[in-house]
């Protein structure tokens, strides 16, 4: 803490370096470890990574695929931004995606003949409502009963999967299908629910616009409205916000509800933007979500919990997932490598967070730093301080 005296310049530099290069450094570290793993598996890392890049961003078609893949990641990620900013750790993206998908699917099955301009928004809304309910449950349990939201969201993921398996192999099952092995899936949903295609000859659907709008809306909500201010204040310190007269419990509940709504919307987009235009699973959450509920967390963390940057990082991570297939073909390394690297990235990003926090405390006054030290450690430890560079 000697930094006050004459080392301002030095500290600023350090802070600058840490805040701007921490995330790229984390990415680089993960890529290097990935290269090491490729080498161990007997593949040329350069060939592998080039195939990955080309597969993700190398042509118009691959860009379209990446954009489509990015939609659920961005939507979930935007929801994660909202929840994490309130210091509510929503690990329930998978379940909220599933319930959103189910709610929108059920709506589509119930109202197949509503005109398309009405039905498309309606089913998307149904998805958002489904996800919102699945977020409101752990949200209110946390706010009013002090139930750890990490656990309740995880348990609700499991419940959601069982509900999905029940509905897709029972009440919502495709009855026209008469094979030996009954696939848990619905029939092809009404064409009136198909998301409009933006570019003829491709699958690029309006979900992309939905994701962009959601990201912008979340940004405005978080930084341009009183609610957003209260939400972030609650995220920084529940106690202080309470003393300031803010409705802490309601804010926590709403944060998880909104977060769930975003994931539910993503679930609806997964159904109505899919090539088969039906909801289908393999009996696991991943079978429907493609792990978007977890990958969305990665995208949001890497986007510094800012919805706009999450849009960018969601696109990049979608590229990794899409390019992973090309890499698999080029160097015969399964795409599971990408999942492992995503995990490493999360670990690196949250580890680096500590270094960043320390460098920030260094330039505050000792008293402030001591106070913030304990408080930030407890309350804002993970999410909140990570986007300094974007906010300023």
């Amino acid at each position, binding site marked *: 803490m000697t930094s006050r005296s004459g080392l301002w310049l030095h500290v600023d530099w350090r802070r600058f370096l840490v805040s701007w290069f921490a995330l790229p450094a984390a990415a680089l570290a993960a890529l290097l470890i990935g290269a090491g793993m490729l080498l161990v598996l007997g593949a040329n890392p350069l060939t592998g990574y080039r195939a990955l890049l080309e597969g993700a961003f190398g042509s118009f078609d691959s860009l379209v695929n990446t954009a489509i893949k990015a939609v659920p990641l961005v939507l979930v990620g935007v929801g994660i931004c909202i929840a994490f900013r309130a210091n509510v750790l929503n690990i329930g993206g998978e379940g909220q995606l599933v319930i959103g998908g189910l709610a929108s699917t059920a709506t589509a099955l119930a109202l197949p003949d509503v005109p398309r301009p009405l039905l498309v928004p309606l089913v998307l809304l149904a998805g958002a409502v489904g996800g919102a309910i699945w977020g409101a449950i752990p949200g209110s349990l946390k706010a009013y009963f002090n139930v750890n939201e990490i656990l309740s969201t995880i348990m609700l993921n499991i419940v959601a999967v069982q509900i999905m398996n029940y509905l897709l*192999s029972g009440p919502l099952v495709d009855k026209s299908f008469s094979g030996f092995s009954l696939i848990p899936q619905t029939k092809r949903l009404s064409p009136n629910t198909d998301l409009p295609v933006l570019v003829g000859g491709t699958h690029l659907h309006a979900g992309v616009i939905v994701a962009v709008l959601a990201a912008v809306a979340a940004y405005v909500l978080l930084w341009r409205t009183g609610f957003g201010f209260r939400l972030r204040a609650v995220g920084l310190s529940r106690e202080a916000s309470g003393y300031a007269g803010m409705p802490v419990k309601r804010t926590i509940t709403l944060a998880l509800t909104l977060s769930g709504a975003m994931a539910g919307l993503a679930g609806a987009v997964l159904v109505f933007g899919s090539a088969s235009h039906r909801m289908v699973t393999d009996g696991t959450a991943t079978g429907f979500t493609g792990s978007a509920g*977890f990958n969305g967390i990665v995208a949001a963390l890497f986007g510094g919990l800012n919805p706009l940057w999450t849009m960018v990082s969601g696109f990049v991570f979608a590229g990794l997932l899409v390019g992973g297939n090309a890499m698999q073909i080029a160097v015969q390394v399964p795409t*599971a490598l990408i999942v492992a690297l995503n995990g490493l990235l999360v670990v690196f990003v*949250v580890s680096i967070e500590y270094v960043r926090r320390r460098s920030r405390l260094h330039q505050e006054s000792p008293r402030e730093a001591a106070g913030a030290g304990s408080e930030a450690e407890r309350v804002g430890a993970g999410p909140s301080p990570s986007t300094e560079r974007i906010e300023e």
Partner: protein
Amino acid sequence: MRQFFTLAVLTATVASGIRLATPFLLASLGETIGQRSGVLNLGVDGIMLLGAFGAYYTALHAQNLWLAVLLGALVGALMGLITAVVSVTMKAEQGISGIGVFLFGLGLSDLLFQKFVGTPLPIDTLPTARVPLLASIPTIGKMLFQANLMVYVAFLLVPAVAFVLNRTTYGTNIKAVGENPAAADSVGVNVARVRYSTIIIGSSLAGLAGATLAIQLGIFQQNLTQGQGFIAVALVYFGAWRPSGVMAGSLLYGMVAAIVLTWKTLGIIPQSASDLAAMAPAVLTVVALVVVARRFRQPAALAKPYERGG
């Protein structure tokens, strides 16, 4: 329903419930030790997957189940070391870093399996070990004392962990570090060292849980655990941070799974309804979380990294 309430079926169901509870029990006992020291390890599922693959691969090639179990635990210990560096030294937000560890384990176990095994070849399953004398008691013997050795290991660990936590200096240190690390530090307890040790022990048990799962099933596949590690974490809350409570929770999950399986086999409930029945423990766990949150207090320093003078 009447086929279910025969002595033979009931006995077999209880025995299978105990067997299915074993991986939950091992993993959640490990998590209990870590949480009592103030560390939330949310990566259990990923660690279980890696432990399961390690054990499966060893069993496939070395044909030695005990070596396989040992390797599962070692893989767990290694992952525990990584988790400890991230949560203790780097003071990361544990609720998120655990998801990272989970994704890493999920991806890496799948990658290794696809690359080095490919097709799911079966391995030997653990043989039944009859407890002398006790196994010959009618009914009870068949329910409780004709299981595989890992079942006994897991259930004997319950009093062992309780003893360590409540009757040893090490246990006192664990609890002190989990309740008030600053106070523990001031009387000379090395907070970081205690937490490193609990995470590594806990993760070894998670690895062991994965190994047990793979060897009980005799198979490995992508995402073998299907979220069992996450349930194990929830069971620690369910059991209010006590080994006996954790055991009760594990048995609940094991028994419900066994009953659903039996009912499905007997045709008492159709496939679709079994999905709903399988939901029961998860719903019950959420309810239990509410009750526990009102009645019990979690370790005061849980998921809070410790920093001197902080």
